[in-house]
């Protein structure tokens, strides 16, 4: 595709968004939609201005982002080495398989009661929800990624004197990294659903809390603003993640 048609595609996308918002605004102004159920875009914008002014919008956004990041990082840092290890050992794969199979279908929401019981309404409890929601699926992504390695490369490495650990570090890890990162990108989205659910149930700050709190006070604009903020934050993080991905995988660059 040429850059010209690329930019015209962006123009079309922006145009479609603007028309949608204008139509929505118009329906609200003309009284077709009750603001309590669906406030107008300008009303949401006004709420955003107010919450930006008192700093609460940034506070909630950063709280959720921090929780996602900490939980997700811990989960990934454990899952990557463990997944690579399991992917290269059939024995230990068999040992851990039943536990992974039992953990994987559990939605992160189902961990909320236990985590509250064990950890209370604390930050650690939020991290643990993100961890429990993303760890087992991440692990499976990583194990699957290690299976895509060309066995010839492992042979070549061994032939050049690589030990088991060398093979994991020098061949299996970098060889499966593109698929691992693709999997983690999906997991990052799931981590966000985990934290929002956790905050909806019990929290003192965060975007999930903001949405729930807005509902309690019939501030539908706050609810919608919280939802928009989730979308925007996830989009921004996705862009940052892609930058990071390119740095991490220099050999995939053309």
């Amino acid at each position, binding site marked *: 595709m040429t850059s010209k048609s690329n930019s015209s595609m962006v123009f079309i996308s922006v145009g479609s968004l603007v028309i949608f918002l204008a139509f929505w605004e118009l329906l609200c102004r003309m009284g077709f939609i009750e603001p309590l159920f669906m406030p107008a875009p300008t009303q949401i914008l006004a709420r955003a201005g107010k919450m930006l002014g008192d700093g609460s919008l940034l506070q909630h956004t950063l709280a959720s982002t921090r929780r996602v990041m900490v939980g997700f990082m811990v989960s990934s840092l454990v899952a990557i080495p463990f997944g690579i290890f399991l992917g290269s050992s059939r024995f230990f794969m068999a040992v851990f398989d039943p536990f992974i199979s039992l953990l994987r279908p559990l939605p992160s929401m189902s961990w909320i009661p236990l985590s509250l019981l064990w950890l209370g309404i604390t930050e650690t409890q939020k991290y643990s929800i993100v961890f429990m929601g993303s760890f087992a699926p991440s692990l499976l992504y990583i194990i699957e990624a290690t299976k895509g390695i060309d066995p010839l490369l492992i042979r070549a490495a061994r032939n050049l004197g690589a030990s088991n650990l060398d093979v994991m570090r020098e061949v299996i890890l*970098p060889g499966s990294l593109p698929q691992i990162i693709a999997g983690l990108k999906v997991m990052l989205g799931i981590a966000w659903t985990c934290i929002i659910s956790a905050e909806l149930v019990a929290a003192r700050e965060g975007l999930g809390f903001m949405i729930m709190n807005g509902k309690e006070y019939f501030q539908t604009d706050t609810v919608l603003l919280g939802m928009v903020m989730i979308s925007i934050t996830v989009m921004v993080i996705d862009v940052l993640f892609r930058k990071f991905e390119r740095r991490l995988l220099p050999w995939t660059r053309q």
Partner: protein
Amino acid sequence: MDPSVAASAAAPENGVEKGAVPKISVRGVTKIFSSKRGEVTALKELSLDIQDGEFMVIVGASGCGKSTLLNLVAGFDHPTAGEVLLDGRPVAGITPECGMIFQQYALFPWKTVQENVEFGLKMKRMPKQERQERAARFIDLVGLNGFEKTYPHHLSGGMKQRVSIARSLANNPQVMLLDEPFAALDAMTRQVLQEQLVRIYEKHRKTIIFIAHSIDEALLLSSRIVVMTARPGRIAQEIVNDLPHPRNAEVQLSSRYMALKRTIWDSVQAEVMKSMEVEAD
């Protein structure tokens, strides 16, 4: 037929009477692969000695167990019966002493040319400075200066195989095993690489086992040629290649060359026919 083309039938333990321990000794090796569909005997009671500094080339019909033999020498696989000895000691596992060059290059895509060539040295925990210098020497040897920081997917097939050769040589193996290394290359590149390999062999005097893609390749490179039978693989014929060096166009047009080629062709052809009959069954 030229009587000097001594075609010694492969009797077990037919090692050349030199007194010295052969570099590699394959003794009565049988290899059977078992799968759900049954058992396949890839090699049957195969015996073969390779002396230090020999350039031995194996030819044979496809599926005759050439690669299996190489994999046993490299320690990737274990014989069902018999043994493979390196310097008189059984090959216990994968050993860096036998450097393997694969037809598909097997370069690490995430490593630059320099990092690929350094790989074996890194595994030996050689200090960084030292291994960089050593890798640079071998990159130079295969004529890839200027490509040190390039990733393999930017290289042509011929260049990739040169990196693979440099990677193996940098690791200083005693034996080099090459499994149809130039089969995927175009004719011109293949010729350049064949000549380069001969020069490397003359300079470094490694013991080489090379599975050839064609009889010409075998005649061009070898000091000895082994023809393998159709499956199950055994040795049909061993031929000492006494063609003079360099094996240029003049040598390739000599009557001696033609006679050797004829002998090998007859032997290989018979085996190819047999293997086709087996497949037709």
